[in-house]
């Protein structure tokens, strides 16, 4: 076969045009670079650490490879500071040449990060930040979440409270985005099921003087209180609530008791919370996960470690579909969007808006530990209003 001059030019031209789209194979021979934008200092440092451990443990369990390719992690401390998020994300993408992004805990940082990741098209997994917008108005082809949406946790708690026979609730939270989203999700489910909200009480963030609100609850006489606080504020709230002896059952998203179970002591007894994970869940994946995690790190895993582990599982699905070639973003995203696997938290499935369809569990705090009471909401899909993916 002879190639004439005209044909040669066509082939050459086609190759030239195709070049930018097809990464030559030598680019793939190096290790896959996963950029971790997580808090490694400050209040959220333990969460960032747990997520990293979960993710690293998963990759290790796969022999250090995903989709047949070695994985290296590039870690950047986001300091939970939204003003730095844009610069740090850009640094990971442009400077560190990260093929995949994983981050982060703080919702404000995550939103800034997601905005850039959307523009740049880098496949991104959010392993904690619960801001509803990430999988609603800001959702994107390449944005995935392996944790929860604030509204969905609130919704599941509302369903559990209805099931427990509560009909008149007072809500109480800090006046900031996460608190409002957790309360709004709760109200949606609770009022839809015939419940009534007597009043929404808020405390300025991060104020920890709760006495006035407690006094108001005592005069409103609801049959239950739904509240969301976190960290030191949650601990003080639990103690103040117990000392006020209101005799009204206290409910909340799991974050209300998360990390302060022991410190709350007697004050925490009887507080019921709803979350997508309990470390005593009876399924083979969880048993294996808890065993591997506690052997590797000498501490028991928490919900954040599970979210990191599942970020790894999701990446495995995506990279497996493209043989480790992260440059095939379209195929990689499509595979992750359809991902469904067994997680330590139970069945895990991606929703059309790239959030998790999962079970939520009812727990009761007793003697410094959260006991498992049952399923609060089965395979609940988060609200996707405003998301134009399908």
């Amino acid at each position: 076969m002879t190639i004439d001059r005209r044909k040669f030019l066509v082939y050459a031209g086609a190759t030239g045009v195709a070049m930018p789209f097809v990464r030559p194979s030598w680019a793939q021979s190096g290790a896959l670079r996963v950029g971790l934008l997580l808090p490694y200092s400050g209040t959220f440092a333990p969460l960032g650490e747990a997520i990293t451990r979960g993710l690293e443990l998963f990759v290790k369990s796969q022999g250090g490879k995903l989709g047949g390719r070695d994985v290296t992690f590039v870690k950047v401390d986001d300091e939970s500071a939204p003003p730095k998020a844009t610069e740090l994300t850009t640094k990971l993408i442009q400077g560190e040449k990260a093929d995949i992004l994983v981050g982060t805990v703080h919702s404000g940082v995550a939103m800034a990060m997601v905005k850039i990741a959307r523009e740049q098209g880098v496949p991104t997994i959010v392993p904690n930040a619960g801001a509803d917008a990430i999988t609603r108005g800001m959702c994107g082809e390449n944005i995935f979440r392996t944790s929860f949406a604030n509204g969905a946790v609130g919704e599941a708690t509302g369903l559990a409270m209805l099931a427990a026979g509560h009909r008149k609730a007072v809500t109480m939270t800090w006046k900031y985005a996460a608190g409002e989203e957790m309360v709004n999700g709760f109200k949606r489910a609770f009022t839809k099921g015939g419940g009534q909200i007597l009043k929404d009480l808020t405390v300025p963030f991060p104020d920890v003087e709760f006495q006035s609100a407690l006094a108001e609850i005592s005069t409103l006489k609801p049959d239950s209180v739904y509240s969301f606080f976190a960290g030191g504020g949650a601990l003080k709230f639990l103690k103040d609530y117990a000392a006020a002896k209101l005799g009204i059952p206290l409910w909340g998203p799991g974050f209300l008791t998360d990390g302060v179970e022991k410190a709350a002591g007697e004050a925490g007894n009887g507080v019921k919370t709803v979350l997508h994970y309990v470390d005593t869940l009876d399924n083979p994946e969880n048993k294996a996960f808890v065993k591997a995690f506690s052997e590797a790190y000498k501490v028991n895993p928490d919900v954040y470690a599970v979210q990191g582990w599942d970020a790894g599982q999701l990446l495995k699905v995506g990279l497996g579909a493209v043989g480790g070639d992260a440059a095939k973003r379209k195929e990689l995203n499509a595979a992750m969007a359809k991902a469904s696997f067994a997680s330590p938290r139970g069945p895990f499935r991606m929703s059309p808006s790239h959030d998790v369809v999962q079970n939520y569990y009812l727990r009761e705090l007793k003697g410094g530990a959260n006991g498992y009471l049952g399923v609060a909401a089965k395979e609940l899909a988060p609200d996707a209003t405003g998301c134009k993916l399908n």
Partner: protein
Amino acid sequence: MSLVLIQLLNGLQYGLLIFLAASGLTLVFGILGVINLSHGSFYMLGAYLALSLTGLTGDVFLALALGIPIAFLFGMAIEWLFIRHLYNRDHLQQVLLTFALILVFNEIQQSVWGSHPLSIPAPSYLSASIKITEGLSYPVYRLALMLICLALALLMVFVIQKTRVGRMIRAAESNREMVEALGFDARILFRLVFAAGVALAATAGILAAPVESAYPGIGDRVLIISFVVVVIGGIGSIRGAFVGSLLIGLADAFGKVFVPQFSAIIIYALMALVLVMRPAGLFGRA
């Protein structure tokens, strides 16, 4: 009506606790002329000290008895190491150094106690709650807290008004050179005043630990509120700090109930109002 009573208690209790912290700040500010941004850190160290000492002794009041001398000695050391070099420097240098101290203390707190919130129980003989209205009980420890703060406030007034040290402090506040000319060593006096300020902040932190619990950054809010109190009461005035603290406590408590949408700004609005009416503060010398 019961809500008013409860808020009155809340406001007084909050105000009295702030007074302990703010009085230390106003003393150091008024007598030493040092803007001490690390004052909140001493409150935080007090809370964490309470945690460790209560673990050791089993009672928060024993922790208080041990903690006050520790904080006092610690304050003297800090004054000798850092603060004494600031007396004749300008405010910017004072702010820089005391801000650096905040960062150092936060780092110490993180490495010694970690970043998880921790708490200690109120002593068992004060852990009950008194039923004050139908459906709401008030923790006895909070009532005890009010009495202790009040007693400490009276003790402070006694020391400053009736004792020799108090006279020296008042004299140094109005004219430092004259005190030195009369043969008193102002350096020792200053060291004692700074240490007393640290001890007061730590005392507030220790007493608050069973109700507030201890977590990173717990001192930040106290620092800001203390400055607001000092501005309202007048720099260097203990009486001003007392009135200012109670005003802040009550405004905060009643603001939260009656104008919840403005509760975050109400104390700052109060400060602005005082600044407009009396720029030197309620009890300050213009």
